[in-house]
Each structure stands twice: as structure tokens, then as C-alpha cells.
């Protein structure tokens, strides 16, 4: 069964090039229609009922999120979205938080292939997708550094949604990351620690050590030493690496 898709982008060039790439490289994907605005796109989705929508974030007269929040979809969105953007860090962070997929312009064929593969491997988990969208819209509604923001973490069992503020620390475990949450709960994420470090950049998190990323709001005490170590709110003690000490001290304002 072919993947039925729609492309929504205000720039003709972008629409055409994505359409051509799909036509040339991904025979399993069928492009049903192409839209050049939010209004246009909404009509096309409702009429074609696609499986997958390639959606440009920034468009004149409204953006991708306006489209997704349209009341005409009712409570459930029956399609998956792969966001497309030229450059927008803030939106990308929000998308990352919600574990949704995105592509950067100009389109890289390999990235597109991975995104399609991911879609194929979980096409039956429609429920999860609407939750992800919910998280995305929730996070977009609030300002940066707002404490109610959430993050979607994919583990072996599926998706877990965690408030950012509840994360105490992340510990590297090879290619996995062990996330320690308030109340002693732990989640083993299938992403490496470096990805979380990047995702949380600009947040109240600090890579205190090669294998530790901590939430600065959960520090109880700092003990001096060569690098010293910190006592976290879950009473765990984490060493501060010698090279990171100065940066750390600056960050916590000491």
C-alpha cells in the first residue's frame, strides 16, 4: 500500500522540488496534491484524507500550527506530519521536544528517507501522534523557560511525556540515556546523552561531566574539590569534571 501524501508550501520552487524528489526516489510515496497556503492545505487535507502531510512551518497568512489547530479536524488528527522549514530554531526545539519529525530546506534525500522509514515503522500508532501534537502545541503556547513545558521521551515501551521541571538529571549509558525524574522514576531513552544536551541547550541544564547532564534547579549543594561534586535533590552525588568547573561556577553564579 502506497503512502498517500500532500505537500503544503507557499513557495512553488520548494513544492516542486520536494515533489520531484519523492517521484524520483520514493516510489512507495504518492503525492496526492500540493497546496500553497494554510487555507488551501486545510481544504486539500479534508478532501484527500492523506496518511502523511509535508508541511512548511512559515507561510504568509498563517503558519503550520494554525493549520493543525483548525477546529475542522475535530479532536483527532488522522494523519502524520513531517515539518519542513528553512530555518527556525525556536520551532525546531519545540518539535524536538515533542519527538516529531522535521526536514530542513533544501531537502536532503537521506534525511527524507529516514523520516519515511520512521513513519512506516509506527504508522499504526496514531494515538501517539496526536499526543505529540498536543505536546508541541502546548510547548509553543508557553514562553521559553516556562516550567510547564513537556518533553516526549521514546523508550522501549513507547512514548512518555515528562514535565521538563521534573527531570533531575540525565545519565549516559552507552547509546542510551537514563533520565532520572522526581519521585525516583527512571526512563531509559533510546537517544544518546549528547542529543539531550543539544536539545536542552538554552535551558536550565548543564553538562557537568562527560556522562552527566543535570537540571540546575535540582542542585541541593555543591562541595568544593578539584572539580568538586554536587548533591542533587534525589540525594545522588555527581562529580563535576575539572574542565567544566569554571563554566559550571559561572552558570550557577558563584
Amino acid at each position, binding site marked *: 500500500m502506497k503512502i498517500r501524501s500532500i505537500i503544503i508550501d507557499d513557495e512553488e520552487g*520548494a513544492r516542486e522540488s520536494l515533489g520531484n524528489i519523492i517521484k524520483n526516489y520514493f516510489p512507495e510515496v504518492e503525492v496526492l496534491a500540493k497546496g500553497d497556503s494554510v487555507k488551501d492545505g486545510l481544504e486539500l487535507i479534508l478532501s484527500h484524507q492523506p496518511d502523511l502531510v509535508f508541511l512548511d512551518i512559515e507561510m504568509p497568512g*498563517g503558519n503550520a*500550527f494554525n493549520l493543525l489547530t483548525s477546529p475542522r479536524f475535530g479532536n483527532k488528527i488522522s494523519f502524520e506530519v513531517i515539518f519542513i522549514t528553512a530555518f*527556525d530554531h525556536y*520551532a525546531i526545539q519545540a518539535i524536538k521536544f515533542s519527538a516529531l519529525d522535521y526536514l530542513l530546506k*533544501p531537502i536532503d534525500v537521506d534525511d527524507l528517507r529516514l523520516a519515511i522509514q520512521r513513519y512506516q515503522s509506527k504508522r499504526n500508532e496514531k494515538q501517539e501522534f496526536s499526543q505529540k501534537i498536543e505536546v508541541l502545541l502546548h510547548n509553543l503556547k508557553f514562553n521559553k523557560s516556562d516550567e510547564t513545558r513537556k518533553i516526549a521521551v521514546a523508550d522501549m515501551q513507547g512514548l512518555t511525556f515528562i514535565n521538563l521541571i521534573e527531570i533531575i538529571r540525565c545519565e549516559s549509558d552507552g547509546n542510551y540515556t537514563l533520565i532520572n525524574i522526581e519521585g525516583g522514576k527512571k526512563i531509559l531513552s533510546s537517544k544518546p546523552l549528547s542529543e539531550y544536551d543539544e536539545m536542552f541547550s538554552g535551558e536550565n541544564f548543564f553538562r557537568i561531566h562527560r556522562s552527566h547532564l543535570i537540571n540546575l534547579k535540582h542542585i541541593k549543594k555543591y562541595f568544593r574539590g578539584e572539580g568538586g561534586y554536587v548533591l542533587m535533590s534525589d540525594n545522588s552525588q555527581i562529580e563535576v569534571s575539572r574542565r567544566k568547573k569554571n563554566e559550571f561556577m559561572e552558570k550557577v553564579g558563584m
Partner: protein
Amino acid sequence: MMAGKKFFLFFFPGNFRIKIFTLFFLFSGTWKIVFSQPSSLFEHFTENSGLPSRKIFEAAQSLDGKIWFATGKGVCNFDGIVFKCFNLEEGLTESEITGIHLDGNGKLWCWSSAGRIFYFENNKFSGIKKNNELGDKTGGRIINSISVDTNKNIWVSTVIPGELFLVSAENTIEEIKMASDNKFSFFIKQTTDNSFVYGSLLCKSENNKLVVLLKNDTFYITLSEKESFSKISFFALKNGEYLLAKGQEIIRFKSGKIIQRSFTEKNVEDIIVDTEGKIWAGLYLGGVICYPEGKLSPAGIINYLGNKSVSSVMEDNSGNIWFTTMEDGVFFLPVRSNLKYSSPEIYSQKGGPKTDEKPKAIARFIDGNEKLNFNGTLRLISNDTTFQDTLPPAIFISGIRIMEKDTIIQTQYDLPFDKNFLRINFAGFSFSNSDELKYKYRMEGIDKAWIYSDNTFAQYTTLPPGKYFFRVSAMNKNGIWSDSTATVSFAINPPFWKTWWFISLMIFCGAAIIFSAFFIRITQIKDREKIKAEFNRQRANAELLALRAQMNPHFIFNTLSSIQHFITTNETEGALKYLSKFAKLMRKIMDNSTRATVPLKDEIEALHLYLELESLRFKNKFEYSITIGKNVDVNEDEIPTMLLQPYIENSILHGLLNKNKEGVKGKLAVDVKKNNGMIICSIEDNGIGREKSMEINLAKIKSHSSSGMSITKNRLKILNELHQSNLSVEITDLKTGGFPSGTKVEIFIPL
């Protein structure tokens, strides 16, 4: 008597100012020196004259008239012309010869610092047979003096208290022990009348007494000094009197009776009375003093040779006086020719001195023939029988002058710091003769030791603040001190600025001032650093923003996306055109971004490229025009880099693209003109206007927080701050018939 005379006469050209002397050398031992150009009182001999060393311990004259010196490098003699040295080659086994002595038989003896004794015979020195044994017995101790009696017994005294050795003519060595309480070493001295004087210092009794044995008399002399290891020197006068010097004290006595006392400023090393009756005393670090009248009174005293250390004084047969010093060779005081000894015929070639008298001194030596019985008299020394025939003198303070003003005598004075010039008069009272009293006084608090004086006053100028206690005591000529001292105490108060509370207050204030200055300075530096850091941060930020403002990343990636489109649709020509224009624009931006301002020409070129790319991207959905006023010099007039681009981008994205929906083609007009020394750039569009654009934006779910416009606003502000310039922007909403019909942005750039 040998009549042979040697006569020397030197003639030098008159312009030769060399000191030369003619001399007569007579076998009789009488010789005279007359200076052809007597330019100074003393003649000085050093190594340059032929002495082996500048360190001279003692001098003696042998029967042939030669003057002998015991030096730090052997012995040498002087015959009036040259010095002849005797050292290790001439029989001395040691070099440092500390004493030289002529015995009653005319034999010359000397001894070394290590305690070896040598005698002169057959033109060389020989050690005595018992030298090694004597060395063992004395343990290498320094010999104080030796004496040889007419029976050729050698008496040796060392510096060890109470030690005396007798090297008999039969070559036996006998040690004669003195009583153990004798603190000072035994001394023995052969006087000119060939009698021996010997004695020791007793310190058992409270007042130190010197025991002197004269022939068979035992005589005790009370000394004023308590502690001293200084040399004792002794001289017998013709009239039967004796001079004795110990430390800073000189005493003249006749058997059993003290005649006179005096104090010197430095320790006396040697004392003699010359044939004219003058008293000469060589002082340690004090040169030579001379009492010309032969009386021990401070009046008329003459000091020679500065502060040299004079080790001995000797008068030769002719009445010339020789002074040996510890570090400066020998000084020689010739007899005044005009006074006594000069007579014209002495200098005649044919004649010679008429005098052929046998020298008295030699006669005395030869006549003396007495052997002393030491053993018999030494035991008497231990008997502590005190010879005292006078009462101690009374002492009182007779007057106190402060700052040259007499005061009523009190026992205690409390003085301010500026009244610190004191003169204290005191008087001693004795039943015999008060004039002969000597005094010692001490201001406790400033004087470290007693000061001995013949004066009846003590004077202190500029005493520093403190507490002082003055004591004075008098002594009669028999050495009896007053029973008690007369005392007075002084307290000189420090000025208020030297009191502890004032000093600590000052230190505290000083510290406070320094601390606060330090603190203020630190705060200042910190503040300045803060401002500087903030400024730098802002500037770095501004630079970053400037770069950002130059090109919206959206534009870059969207452009690349458009090129990708041409490629996917195999439109090679379009892709090439697009790519080359994009490359041109990027190059322009990079060139411009290295400069703060660029000529208008460059800026407009970049805008052309930008607008071209944007219109290509949006499929010619809008038209644009750029017009430049005639008075604008595009090559010379400069504006900040990429200042206009964000406004143009804003017009396209928010004004024109939204407008596009309504089916009317958008128009963008860029106009540059110069007015009143100001570049005015206006960007006019026929878009939907700001209000409507805002509405649309508000409806959007916020997807990015920043916009080129806000960055540009900040940039303008920073540019104005950095360059103290006055860049400004004016935005007008254009209306036609009450409906919005576009936006006009005007940027005013002062040149």
C-alpha cells in the same frame, strides 16, 4: 772609646723635594737625624721604607745603637739608613714576634706569639734550648713578658692569671703558681734602673688592688676599675717615683704613697717619661698623648697620631722617641735640633760630635747587678693586708642647670621633651685635698658604663624622652671611693605626638584611610570593568546582530531550496542563473560585512541582487525599482552596512506577499536622496499596511520570536551610541480614501 765615625752627606738638586736626611752614625750608639726639609713633626716608616710589616709590637735599642722592632713578620733592625730583617732564615722558627727586650747584659731577647723565646747572637737568632719544653708547659699560651736577671735566669709570664715560669741558667723549668684569686696575669717588668717590678691584680677584696713589689717592698694600689684585662705598663722615674698605667688610669707613686692620678679616654698600652721630663702614653685606638709639663693634669695635654693603635713607646739614647703601631708601622719623633742637640760642627765634614759620653741608660744596665728572690716575696702577695690611710670622700650635687638656667636642686625632675639640655654640677669633699679628687658618674638610661672624669660637672644635650637616673661618686688619690653615690632622677616626657595613644590613633587613622582608598579604588575598578565588559558584550552582540541582520537565514535556505527546485526539474539554465546571483550576493555581503560603513554603490548593488533573487523566488509576484537622486555621490557617500535590507525584506514578506492574495501586483520603490547633509532612504510599498499585517501575525501561533525588524532597531540604537550619531527611522502608513494602501519607511542617515 771608639773614635771612628761614619759620616753621610747627601746632596740632591734643589728642585728635588724628596725628604732626605743626613745622619751620623756613631759606634757609641748615639746618632742624630736632621731633616733637610722638616715638613712634619713625625717621620713615618712603613713597608715602603723597608719594614717587613705594618704590624709592630715593640721596639728596643741594642748596645750598638740600632733600633730593633718586633713585627708581625719577624724582627728587624734599623741602623739609620736601612732596615735589616730577620725571619725564618735567620734562626727564628716563628714569624709573629710579639715582644723584644734587652737584658742587663746587653743581650737581645724576643718571643713569639706561640710562646717560643729567641736570643740574638753571632748575627742570627737562636731559640733557647728549653723552647719545646716551655711550649709544652705553657701550652702555647701567649707570653706577656720576659725578664732576664743578671744570673741569666729567664722569668716568663703568660696571659694566664697567676702563671709564672722560671727558665733557670741550669736549663730547668720551674712553674711558680700564684694564689688562685689573682685574676690578672702576673706581670714582670724590668725598669731602667735594672730593678724588677712585678705584681698581680687581686680581686678578692671589693676594691681591686694591684700588688706591686719593688725590691723588697710590697705595695698595694687601689684601682678604680672593676673589670679589666688591659695591659699594665710601668715606668721608673729618675727621682725614685714610678708611673703605672692600667686601663684608662695613670697613677704616679713613690714607695708606699700615691702622688697623683689621672684618667685617659682610651686604654693605655705603654707609658714612658723622656729625658726632658715629658710623659708620653700610647693609647689603644687613641694615638699618643703627651703631658708636656710632666704632670698628670688634663691641662696642656697634647694628642698626636689621631686614633691609631700605639703598641709601644720608646726613647732611644739620643732622646728620639719611637712609636710602634699595630697597623701603621713606626712613627719617629726626632729630637728638636734647635732645642738641644743640634750643634753646627756636627755637620762639618772633618769634625764630628764632640760628645762621646757613655749613654746613661747603658751604664745603668751594666751597673745593675741584683738577683731578686721571687720565691721569698711571692707568698706575701697572697696576704690580703689592705693599705689604707684616708677616709672616703663625701659627694653631693651642687647645681643643676636645665636649658642653661639654674634650678632649685630637687631629687626628681619631670621635664617636657624640649627641656632636655642638662648640666649637673657636683662636688666632692675630702679631709685632705679636695682638688685631687677624681670622679665617676653615670646617667642610667643612656650611659652604658661609668664615665671617669677630672671635671666637676656632667653635661647632657638633647636627651631623648625617657627615664634617667644620675649617679656620681668621688675618689681620693689613694683610690678610696665615696661610701655612697649622690643621685638625682630625671623623667623627660615624650611630646604628645610620640605618646603611645597618639601613635596608635595615627596608625589606626592611616590604616583606615589606606583601607578606604583601597576599597574605593577597587570598587571603581570593578565598576569600570563591569561597564567595560558590558560594553564589550554589547558590542560583540551588536556585531553578531549586524551579521544576522544582513541576511535572514530564512532567505538563504529558501534560496538554496529554490536552486534545488531548478535542479530537480532539470532546468540547468535557471539553476545556473540563480546560483551565480546568489553567489554574487553572498560575496558582496561578506565584503561589506568587514566594514562598518560602505559606499552607497556597494549597498545598492547588494540590494539589487537581493531583490532580484526574491522576485525570482516569488515568481515575479512583485515589481521593484531603485532610484538615486542626482546629488548623491554613490562612490563617496557612505552608510552603515546592510541597513536597508531588513526593511525591504519586511516590506516583501509582510506587505507585498500578503497583498498578493488580492490579485494586484505588488510594487516596491527604493529611493535614495541627499538633503541637508543627510542621506534619506525611503522604501515604499503598496502592500496591506502595518495594521492588517499585524492582525495576520497575531492570528499565527508564534513560531519564531525574533524578527529582522527588532534586530535592526537594536542595531540602530547601538550604532547611535557607538558613533554618537543620530540615525533615525520614520514609518508612515499610506492611505487612499481612508483605506490602507501601503507603508513608507524613511531612514535618515547623517553623513
